[in-house]
């Protein structure tokens, strides 16, 4: 990753949005559409170079949603200088190590079970005070009758989804997360510039 030092002396390791107001609006609509229709593969579309191990899609989620009010956790693999600088420079987010303090966690892969259960699931009075996971995966597909069968709010009948490059224990952990509703974490899976959102309401069935 090459860091460019511009004339102002600010090292801008990558660009943010061109025309922030329009680009963030467009990105948010796509992210909201993904959250409202779980399992749908949504391409965010803008071409961006990865920053460290953070894909274009994760960058766009961060640029759209993170600011000084959102403590961010980076896993050890993502938490390298260019990514940390990206969050400090573009988002102004504080970087935290304690999963329970993070509003967003940007992860290069599925963390171990201990860490998964350490993220904030909100409280009965405020279930919205929970962590949103943004996890890098290899790719998505939506062939019928294969992989995962998703159901729940936002899904008409059943939605089929295949995710490659994700640790299988994520799917073992998910039903426990969903069963705590209204508590729970929400997840956004990212591959390149494509995202799939899994709000806590999603019920999963694995198909052989």
């Amino acid at each position: 990753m090459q860091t460019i030092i511009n004339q102002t002396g600010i090292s801008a390791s990558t660009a943010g949005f061109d025309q922030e107001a329009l680009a963030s609006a467009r990105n948010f609509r796509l992210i909201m559409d993904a959250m409202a229709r779980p399992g749908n593969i949504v391409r965010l579309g803008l071409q961006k170079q990865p920053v460290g191990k953070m894909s274009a899609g994760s960058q766009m989620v961060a640029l759209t949603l993170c600011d000084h009010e959102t403590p961010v956790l980076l896993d050890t693999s993502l938490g390298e200088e260019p990514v940390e600088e990206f969050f400090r420079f573009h988002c102004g987010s504080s970087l935290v190590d304690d999963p329970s303090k993070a509003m967003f966690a940007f992860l290069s892969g599925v963390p171990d079970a201990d860490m998964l259960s350490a993220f904030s699931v909100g409280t009965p009075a405020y279930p919205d005070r929970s962590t949103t996971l943004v996890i890098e995966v290899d790719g998505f597909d939506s062939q019928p009758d294969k992989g995962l069968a998703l159901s729940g709010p936002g899904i008409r009948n059943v939605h089929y989804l295949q995710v490659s490059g994700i640790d299988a224990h994520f799917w073992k952990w998910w039903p426990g997360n969903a069963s705590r509703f209204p508590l729970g974490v929400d997840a956004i899976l990212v591959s390149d510039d494509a995202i799939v959102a899994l709000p806590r309401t999603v019920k999963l069935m694995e198909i052989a």
Partner: protein
Amino acid sequence: MTRYNFAYLNEQTKKMIRRALLKAIAIPGYQVPFASREMPMPYGWGTGGVQVTASILTADDVLKVIDQGADDTTNAVSIRKFFKKTAEVRTTEVTEDASVIQTRHRIPETPLREDQILVYQVPIPEPLRFLEPRETETRKMHAYEDYGLMHVKLYEDISQHGHIATTYAYPVSVEGRYVMDPSPTPKFDNPKMNDCPALQLFGAGREKRIYAVPPYTRVVSLDFEDHPFEVQQWDAPCELCGARDTFLDEVITDDAGGRMFVCSDTDYCSKRQAESEAAE
């Protein structure tokens, strides 16, 4: 875009509202607190809906705004103008042409599609507020799913009036968990919220709450086995278009007791009138 940031609000405010919207969608029917801003219109004129619309609007959207079903009333006209000026989006009065519809208390008669979003202006988001004024208590009641009081209220309706007399802001249960105020829509519109292909977002500016019903979500009006939920019915059809399946407004026509009943959804009614004229 010369004098305003796109869609009026500053970017940090939109980020905050957008995060609240995502949580609202992930927890259907739960009221997410948000840092509602002062808007250039008074509370009660749709500041919550306007902030939600401002945060979801893109340059490509086509916006429709309705007030009690009508596109040509003060509130609807001024909000439509507001977004024309601050976001330079295209606007329409035709339900089918709109991608975002902001509404004050009606759901259009034309069925909504998957690629449309309905934004409600909500005055009082808490369905339990008139039963329990303390926010600390209503928050616990939602947390414990303690909705007995709401059923008592509906029961008292029956014992006093012989039927459930609540006709608007009729409480619904969302996906079997949260009891939600559908905003003061007539209960006639409640069945349209169930399994709706469109995303439904609710903004309450003064009360600083955002909530949502994702597409294809179960929305059930509360009732009793022996007193099932029923919608309003009218004896006569709309006097302008002859529709028998729409929500009708009573319009006073003179000072001698003259009155007529017409569709509250002006777009739907004028479309039906145009169709019948074309057929003649």
